[in-house]
């Protein structure tokens, strides 16, 4: 399994991390090394095994479907790099 520069560019785009063109090949080699080590999982027979999603050996709880929190706009926005009133501010998205 080897990740070519085009694949690395695609993954980086999906992950929203800027990777410069000259880093695509070395990063691809690094990630390929990790994936090559992971390939040993193909030795295991997993026929008929149910996937295990988590370590909690219990059913998830349900809570009452009611509003139990809110009205904290200032606290929520307190770490925003940029805000406009009670909103996060970002560069113009719609022309």
């Amino acid at each position, binding site marked *: 399994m080897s*990740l070519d520069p085009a*694949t*690395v560019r695609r*993954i*980086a785009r*999906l*992950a*929203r*991390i*800027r*990777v410069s063109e000259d880093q695509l090949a070395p*990063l691809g080699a*690094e*990630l390929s*090394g*990790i*994936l090559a*080590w*992971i390939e*040993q*999982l*193909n*030795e*295991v027979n*997993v026929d008929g*095994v*149910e*996937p*295990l*999603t*988590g*370590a*909690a*050996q*219990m059913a*998830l*709880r349900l*809570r009452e479907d009611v509003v139990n929190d809110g009205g*904290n706009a200032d*606290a*929520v926005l*307190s*770490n*925003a*790099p*940029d805000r406009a009133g009670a909103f*996060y501010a*970002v*560069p*113009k*998205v719609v022309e």
Partner: protein
Amino acid sequence: MFDLTLAQARDGLRKRDFSARELTDAYLGAVAALNPKLNAYLLVTEAQARAQADAADAALARGEAANLTGIPLAIKDLFCTKGVRTTAGSRILEHFVPPYESTVTANLLRDGAVFLGKVNLDEFAMGSSNMTSAYGPVANPWTRRGDNRPLVPGGSSGGSAAAVAARLALGATATDTGGSIRQPAAFCGIAGIKPTYGRCSRWGIVAFASSLDQAGPIARTVEDCAIMLRSMAGFDPKDSTSADLAVPDYQAACHRSVKGLRIGVPKEYRSEGMAPEIEAMWQQGLAWLRDQGADIVDVSLPHTKYALPAYYIVAPAEASSNLARYDGVRFSSRTDGGDLTELYENSRAAGFGAEVQRRVLIGTYVLSAGYYDAYYIRAQKIRALILKDFTDVFRTVDALVTPTAPSAAFGQGEKMDDPVTMYLNDVFTGPANMSGIPGLSVPAGLDSQGLPLGLQVLGKPFDEETVFAVGAAIERASGFSALPGIRAGVAA
């Protein structure tokens, strides 16, 4: 005063041998003197600590001592602390001040603890050496005999372990996603426990891999860990995977006999190329338990070798999802771009270090269309087989004993050439996270270079009591009393 364990300091406070303020001032002084050498603390909250200590003295004077009243602790900088900067060791959270308190730290405050400050860690808890912190590496207070080059304290809870080992706190909070409590505890010659998944609330802890992350204490002794866990643990409706179970008296469990307990020795952990000193320490630990009346039984966990490669699918997959929130819009740091997508990409490229970027990219890849079944679903099936291995052996044994890590502490900058070499630090610890079972590391002895080695005790889900009993039995037998060269109370 620095020679006292947490349990002894608590007794001293209750008997008014010294005040909480005196204890806290002594620790703050030690932090000021030694932290420049160790870089364990990222932030010292002196004024808050003194105020909490004064409140503890008032409570003690009223005869209202809670479990941890007046005990100075260090808090891993992954736990959100209200009004106190929380960085997760990352540049992207450089200015993040949480408007809320994590459940675990709130529980500790409820029980009277004093917080000295926030301690260093690998960035977003991703690492085994504390070398990935955006705020610089932590030095292990131990060095090799006759060689003063700095060693790593392990990771990701490297600041927690270094602070406790150097006596810059009586205990510390930590988290463990693949070994991040147990490996640094072993590297620094102290004790640490990752409780069962669900025992401590994850609410307010910066998330790495939510199905694996679990908080626990690092402290000087097994009993000190037991005292701290009693306060940290407990049901929390704000964490959907929090266990609604009563928290037992773990301290009492430390004094239980191990006579008649069946201790399993998994043959798959005896890897080829295991360092002879690690193997010898393991055999010594088993002999100590046999001498105290435990039955030692060989067992098999056939899927052990697949736990770590499967972990490196599951953990990055969950991380890529959890870290999507750091977008340059909601938290702390932003790097501008021409449009919104560029803003995201620039903020994340500037804010995340190399290891975090690697894991987010791996996670994105294994979850992407066309690869999801081959990687992520297969890893989850292997996770089921790993759990089944443990479920099967725990039908016949009460606990397992293994080495904690495949080596003693290594040098800063070692094992950095290839990511997989660093990942293999977690070969003995990762299976407990994949299956959710509790695991404790206890110092057992020194290697020929004078560095501490730890043994790991694994137990049944929610049976931390047996884990504490076995760990304390090893601790008693080992009589481990060696101390690192850098520590409070000795002249530098």
